[in-house]
């Protein structure tokens, strides 16, 4: 008898080193004729045989039909094993799960993306999707920070975004992380956000990063008088089942895996203490 937890077999078709501890995998399902339809912001469960399963957001966009991409930072047993994988290694995929970004409500709006570290991964799929139909959206601003220039992911893509005149890209590194040739901002993401001070009517802000960054960034949005309904964040709390049953990723009554991972700030404000406990 089949069950929800048996993954689909997939192979590693490409490995892109991003930083010293982040690599992006390009994955292809073995049963490629079965659809894998997803929206930007959704996630999947990636299995390494005999090691385990972990949750990763899909870093590619639905338009990238050839591969599914996930960026993986090496932190624990499963991610360690993922970093040991070679081309053509067998992995398992369950999903896609979660709600994804509300693409329809983003249409026609000015968009501000705020990312930190590996938190750029879910935003990258969204940004790609937006750039595919650039004319459907208003002004685009990308604020991205990492500890050091070397810790920035998707460097090629950052260059492309910086090179475009229809996207404003602000890069920053943590104080102390700058190198002599670093020309862009130095400062923590929330501080740089405050400095660049977008206007509250700017449209929609999308935030993703480590918990502490999300927390402080949302606080800056409060200061700047942003409407909590117009701030989207994508959360990644510990998940196992991915389908709202195992009971660990809840934010109040909402399950990150099922009702999220994309939430408006308004939805989760009440439970902030329970989500972003530092």
């Amino acid at each position, binding site marked *: 008898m089949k069950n929800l*937890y048996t993954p689909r*077999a997939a192979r590693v078709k490409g490995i892109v080193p991003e930083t010293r501890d982040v690599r992006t995998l390009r994955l292809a399902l073995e049963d490629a004729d079965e659809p894998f339809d997803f929206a930007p912001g959704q996630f999947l469960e990636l*299995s390494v*045989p005999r090691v385990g399963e972990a949750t990763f957001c899909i870093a590619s966009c639905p338009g990238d039909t050839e591969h599914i991409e996930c960026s993986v930072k090496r932190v624990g047993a499963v991610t360690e094993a993922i970093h040991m994988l070679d081309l053509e290694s067998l992995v398992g995929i369950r999903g896609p799960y979660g709600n994804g970004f509300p693409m329809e409500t983003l249409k026609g709006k000015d968009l501000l993306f705020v990312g930190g570290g590996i938190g750029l991964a879910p935003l990258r799929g969204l940004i790609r999707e937006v750039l595919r139909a650039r004319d459907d959206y208003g002004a685009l601003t990308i604020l991205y920070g990492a500890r050091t220039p070397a810790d920035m992911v998707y460097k090629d893509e950052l260059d492309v975004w910086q090179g475009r005149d229809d996207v404003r890209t602000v890069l920053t590194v943590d104080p102390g992380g700058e190198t002599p040739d670093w020309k862009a901002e130095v400062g923590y993401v929330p501080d740089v956000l405050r400095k660049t001070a977008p206007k509250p009517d700017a449209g929609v802000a999308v935030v993703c990063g480590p918990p502490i960054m999300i927390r402080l960034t949302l606080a800056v949005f409060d200061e700047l008088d942003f409407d909590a309904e117009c701030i989207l964040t994508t959360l990644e709390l*510990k998940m196992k089942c991915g389908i709202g049953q195992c*009971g*660990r990723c809840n934010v109040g009554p909402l399950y990150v895996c099922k009702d999220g991972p994309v939430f408006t700030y308004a939805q989760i404000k009440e439970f902030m203490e329970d989500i972003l406990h530092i």
Partner: protein
Amino acid sequence: MIAKRDQLGAQIAELLETMEIVAPVRERGRVYFRAVRSPDDIAWDYGTSVNSIKEFFLPPRQVLFCYTSGGFKPVSAVPEKPRVIFLARPCDARALNIMDKVFLGDRPDETYAALREHATIVGLACDRPDQHCFCTSVGGSPAGTEGMDAILIPTGDGSYDVKILSDKGRAIFPDVPGDDSTVPDEFVQKAEAAIRRHITVPDNIRDSFASDYWREVSETCLKCGLCSHLCPTCHCFDIVEEGDCRVRCWDYCQSDTFTRIAAGHDHRAEKFSRCRNRVYHKFDYYPENFGVVACVGCGRCARHCPVNNGIADLVNGVDAR
């Protein structure tokens, strides 16, 4: 129809040839639901059992699939023989309907669904609540029939009034006329009056989310999983790798590893926030999501709590603030 214990016993002996029978049995002076080999094993006159019957629907350990050279081979957790659960209390039977909301919702769990389908539940109306039982405070009744296929109503002298509640129940008791499936009012009233513990689940429990109350009442909690493991509605699980297989097993929300990610972040790192989440999950979030409190008032959390700090007291105390 009135049946005597030995009549039912003889029937169980017959059923044992083709079915697995789960019933309360006495072990070391306490009562547990176990698969029985003979009707003689059954503790007919039990009051409350230590474990609930949830383990027969959500197994404590379930192999999901095993690795093969080229992929993943699912493993069935459904036993061949159909199962009858005898003498389940109304609280435990009702808990299944509550768990159904999670496991038979928009993404039905095949194993759970099959085990539900596979099992017939013959309940036992409750005339022996103890001081921790509070089913009537959370929408249940000691004479409730929710989740059952048949119910036995004790009439004294080791006899039972057998009522059929579903086709599955009829298959077990083909001789019982199915025209009457109501529990007599007299029994209901007497049984409900025997429930001594009453708790109040405040309507505005959400308002207390930020209260210091949670720090105070969780102080002595040991963060063990005893209450979750015995709770008939607690269903949180973990998915782990064991040898060549992946396994689903019970987990508990007070555990240090429940919400901690590999990178170290734990969104419920402090004891009080776990304790609070546990209470809210049952009495606030579950009602919001599924329209029913995820507690059946069986009293196990209080009865067995190592430090006598049961959930019932935690939720009951919220209103007192």
